[in-house]
């Protein structure tokens, strides 16, 4: 029998089939943040239950934390409702003795950045979190899925996810990317092709030479947005790049166990001849830098394109919200704000990619605000050691403390009504980055180059 990577991961974790034909899938790692967990802990308490295996759980606050002054800790959260949520996470972790990288911890950050960085995300694992972007961790050959709060409670209580099997989809990106084209452009181009519901019911395995030559950070960017194509899980096969990334991470196995682990992990690939229910092949060299123009990630086009004619009410509504008309060139859209960050693009490679463009340059005087929010305290530390913070600050960016920040604007980092933002985040939904805010999803390189220009610019021209 030949199996896909998804099938292998599934087989490693299937506990049993319940009477209702659904399966119990054993969960190795459960990541927790402050927004989707309080009701789950409360439910557990009300039912008189306790967590099944404490060591499976790791928590960190990320959605609500301020990215400006961290010196005051919790007292620096001025929104009392938000503060209560972070305090509740603290309390729940203390009560159950769950390891938390709290607001004072230098390892604190966006949960999907922290997990891989600490070696808490290891190949062959099943990982869940009450956050749809859990698909990120699939970049390390794990089966990782976002879940709702009831499921969070279920996982806490049983160490299992009740679920059905997904179908297999393979997206192959062949050839080589052009200079200036990044993993973010790849993942947006895939969504543009298959649509935001194209992956519903599937696990998407990304493969092909472009993925093989990509760093783990890049693969995480690609898998992160599998959910934006409708797929609960994104996956990339284990290889030498994965091994090199994990070696010596704090929670990664060491010594004998390391050797045993890498021996086991090398089987985490789709077998030759394994069956995929759906196959998509994209020529990597044909992908241009991508920019979204609407209010769904599938409303995306090449940087040198123009806004299309609306063919549905949804498209008309989106253009109305974005205050754009068909025929307008993407490069003619003036920008008000720039956001570099989020679980999609806040890792060290993303910051390097943007800093390389910004070095020795100033952002346009028409940009009202440009912020860069590292994904974790350790990403921030590394960037500072490399002098990237200075490059950002010199160019006119604000250098911030780690968190989800303006990706969903639960903290004070928000767009003003009507403002256009070049954002490296994952969702351009109405109002997501602030009431009336207009989000354009792009790569860190495009965001940086466009910050200098004041409007969208083809980063390929910029670097040549």
């Amino acid at each position, binding site marked *: 029998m030949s199996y896909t990577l998804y099938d292998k991961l599934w087989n490693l974790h299937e506990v049993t089939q319940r009477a209702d034909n659904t399966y119990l899938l054993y969960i190795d790692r459960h990541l927790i943040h402050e927004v989707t967990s309080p009701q789950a802990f409360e439910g557990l308490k009300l039912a008189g239950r306790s967590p099944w295996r404490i060591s499976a759980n790791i928590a960190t606050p990320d959605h609500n934390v301020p990215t400006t002054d961290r010196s005051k800790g919790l007292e620096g959260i001025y929104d009392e409702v938000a503060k209560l949520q972070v305090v509740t996470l603290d309390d729940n972790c203390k009560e159950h003795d769950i390891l938390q990288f709290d607001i004072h911890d230098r390892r604190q950050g966006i949960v999907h950045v922290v997990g891989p960085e600490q070696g808490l995300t290891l190949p062959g694992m099943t990982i869940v979190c009450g956050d749809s972007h859990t698909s990120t961790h699939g970049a390390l050959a794990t089966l990782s899925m976002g879940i709702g709060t009831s499921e969070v409670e279920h996982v806490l209580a049983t160490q299992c996810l009740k679920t059905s099997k997904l179908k297999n989809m393979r997206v192959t990106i062949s050839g080589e990317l052009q200079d200036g084209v990044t993993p973010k452009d790849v993942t947006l181009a895939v969504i543009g092709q298959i649509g935001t*519901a194209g992956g519903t019911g599937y696990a998407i395995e990304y493969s092909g030479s472009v993925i093989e030559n990509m760093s783990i950070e890049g693969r995480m960017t690609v898998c992160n947005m599998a959910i934006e194509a409708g797929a609960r899980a994104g996956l990339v096969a284990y290889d030498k790049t994965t091994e090199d990334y994990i070696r010596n991470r704090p929670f990664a196995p060491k010594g004998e166990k390391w050797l045993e682990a890498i021996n086991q992990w090398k089987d985490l690939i789709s077998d030759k001849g394994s069956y995929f229910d759906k196959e998509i092949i994209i020529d990597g060299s044909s992908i241009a830098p991508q920019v979204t123009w609407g209010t769904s990630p599938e409303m995306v086009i090449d940087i040198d394109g123009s806004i299309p004619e609306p063919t549905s009410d949804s498209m008309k509504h989106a253009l109305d919200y974005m205050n754009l008309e068909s025929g307008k060139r993407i490069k003619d859209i003036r920008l008000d704000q720039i956001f570099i960050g989020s679980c999609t693009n806040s890792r060290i490679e993303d910051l390097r990619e943007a800093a390389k463009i910004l070095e020795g340059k100033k952002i346009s005087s028409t940009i009202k605000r440009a912020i860069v929010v590292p994904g974790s305290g350790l990403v921030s530390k590394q960037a500072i050691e490399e002098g990237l913070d200075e490059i950002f600050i010199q160019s006119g960016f604000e250098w911030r403390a780690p968190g989800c920040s303006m990706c969903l604007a639960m903290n004070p980092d928000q767009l003003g009504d009507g403002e256009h933002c070049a954002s490296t985040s994952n969702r351009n939904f109405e109002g997501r980055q602030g009431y009336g805010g207009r989000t354009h999803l792009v790569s860190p390189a495009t965001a940086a180059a466009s910050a200098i220009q004041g409007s969208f610019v083809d980063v390929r021209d910029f670097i040549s």
Partner: protein
Amino acid sequence: MKNTSTFHAGQAVPLERDNIDTDQIIPKQFLKSIKKSGFGQNLFDAWRYEDEGFPGQDVSLRKVNKEFILNQDKFLDSDILISKKNFGCGSSREHAVWSLLDYGFKVVIAESFADIFYNNCFNNGLLPIVLDSKDIDKLLNLAEQRQQIEIDLENQIIFSVDSEVAHFDIDPFRKKCILEGLDEIGLSLTHSEQIKEFEKNRILYSPWIFINEKENG
């Protein structure tokens, strides 16, 4: 024609748009609550009101957007929501389902749903029904005419006042869960021994997964 097996009978409101995301259903500023209730007044907040919403506001003082369909007189008392493709896409926030329920919706009918939202519905007793566009159109028509729509979950049929409108598919167990309100966790815990046995083997096979901070930190 109220059946004994009627799950719900009510008025439907059409929200004719694809890709209605959970950020629209309940905007992020309301996710700061640590409760499951009280979200109904902020359901579709950015579309329902003319001003920007924030937690703790007295919504009775806010200016409502009269054009938004939920605010139109004829749809004010609706408790069945009809939409199009990929309803509930985006964030995993279960607050989206809590807000639909808290507003008073009992059923959401759409051409398709996003996976996580679909699961979240069943975990809270909100019934999601998938129908093809032809059947959706029939229901939209009934909604426009303010005809009552009746959902017989037992037999998986949707009726208008005088006739059968559509059949729908649903997983038999999920149907049972909604009808009987089963405790999912309790049910899974009946497999406790199997989970323990599995875990024991998993520790033997991949011990590094179970390493704690003290051994490694």
